[in-house]
């Protein structure tokens, strides 16, 4: 259960938002909406614990995330608008390296399964700098396939994906919600998530 109380965000001297509250149970998804510069990305970073809120608090299972520390980061999977992949490494290497850094065990078979799921099989040994923008995004998304985290925080996950991939990702998020997972995401595209309860939060 993820809760936020009275969050406030100040960037420079501008107050982007204030008094933001929400509550998210297992199996629910929070869909953040708002114009460019309304603070969507900042709110996502607050949920991850990267940016401290100017006021208010975020709690996971009733405890402040700052206090939980590593216990919270263990359940969290964050996908920012940067892909967090290394151009010099191949998709396979990127995936295994990021799994190791996240403290997970990932066999080569599982990694290849994940790459197959995002449609990159056959390119697993090609350095990522030779991949297209959409393919790089898929490498980043392949983490979602194998990491079994309860809370997904996704910043514009559908950007640069083609129609088929968008549908596939929507299905993946839906399955995650059905397993009892939580998700918070922003997107500019209209996407139909096939399962779970969707809550909306509009930042103005």
């Amino acid at each position, binding site marked *: 259960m993820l809760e936020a109380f009275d969050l406030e965000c100040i960037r420079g001297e501008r107050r982007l938002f204030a008094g933001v509250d929400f509550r998210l149970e297992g199996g629910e998804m929070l869909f953040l909406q708002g114009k460019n510069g309304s603070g969507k990305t900042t709110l996502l970073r607050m949920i991850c614990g990267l940016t401290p809120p100017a006021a208010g608090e975020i709690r996971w299972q009733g405890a402040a995330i700052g206090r939980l520390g590593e216990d919270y980061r263990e359940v969290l999977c964050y996908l920012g608008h940067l892909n967090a992949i*290394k151009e010099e490494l191949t998709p396979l290497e990127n995936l295994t390296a990021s799994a190791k850094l996240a403290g997970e065990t990932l066999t080569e078979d599982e990694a290849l399964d994940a790459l197959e799921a995002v449609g990159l099989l056959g390119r697993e040994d090609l350095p990522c700098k030779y991949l297209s923008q959409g393919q790089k995004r898929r490498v980043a998304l392949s983490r979602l396939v194998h990491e079994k985290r309860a809370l997904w925080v996704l910043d514009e996950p559908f950007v640069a994906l083609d129609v088929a991939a968008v549908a596939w990702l929507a299905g993946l998020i839906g399955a995650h919600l059905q397993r009892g997972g939580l998700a918070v995401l922003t997107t500019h595209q209209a996407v139909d998530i096939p399962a779970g309860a969707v809550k909306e939060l509009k930042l103005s």
Partner: protein
Amino acid sequence: MIGSVGAVAARDLKLAMRRQADLVSVLFFFIIVASLFPLGVGPEPQLLKKLAPGVLWVGALLATMLSLPRLFADDYRDGTLEQLVLAPQPLGLTVIGKVVAHWLVSGLPLALLAPVLGLQFDLETDALLILTVSLLIGTPALSGIGAVGAALTLGLRGGGVLVSLLVLPLYIPVLIFGAGAVDATVTGMGAEAHLSILGALAIGGVFFAPWATAAALRISLE
């Protein structure tokens, strides 16, 4: 715990191996700086022998600093740093892993190259040996302390120059005892005292500085 440090170090080493140009340019910088000094001060062997410890140590120090801005900059730019901060392990351990990798591709090669350059300065065998040992012990401290500066200046304009401004004053003790160890050998005094203090500085640099670096990284990412 060791595993997570190792995972970070292994990934950084693999990346460094794919970009060998960076590694080579740091080494060449060291070679060129050390070779410029005799041209500047004249070829008298006595003078060069006296200058050698300081010149080689300052050269190694500047070369290490040259490679510092890249320590976190690439990870910062492509979003990997956010993932490292969000990994379920203490950020300080991650930083130790990165410092270890940085030392393996900068400090270690510099230490191994130094005795060759020492020959240009007509150093004796025992001085060459102590030069290598002092660099082996001292350069980890340079990587560790330097990481604090690199983390503080992450993403700032003019970050490279700023790193030198922040880090060079903090490097002074390492320089004093590193060059002092070689100097003591040249003048016939023992280098043990210098080397043990250098060791203490290295332990501080590798095991304590990463926690300050972790705090600085969190601040830079906010």
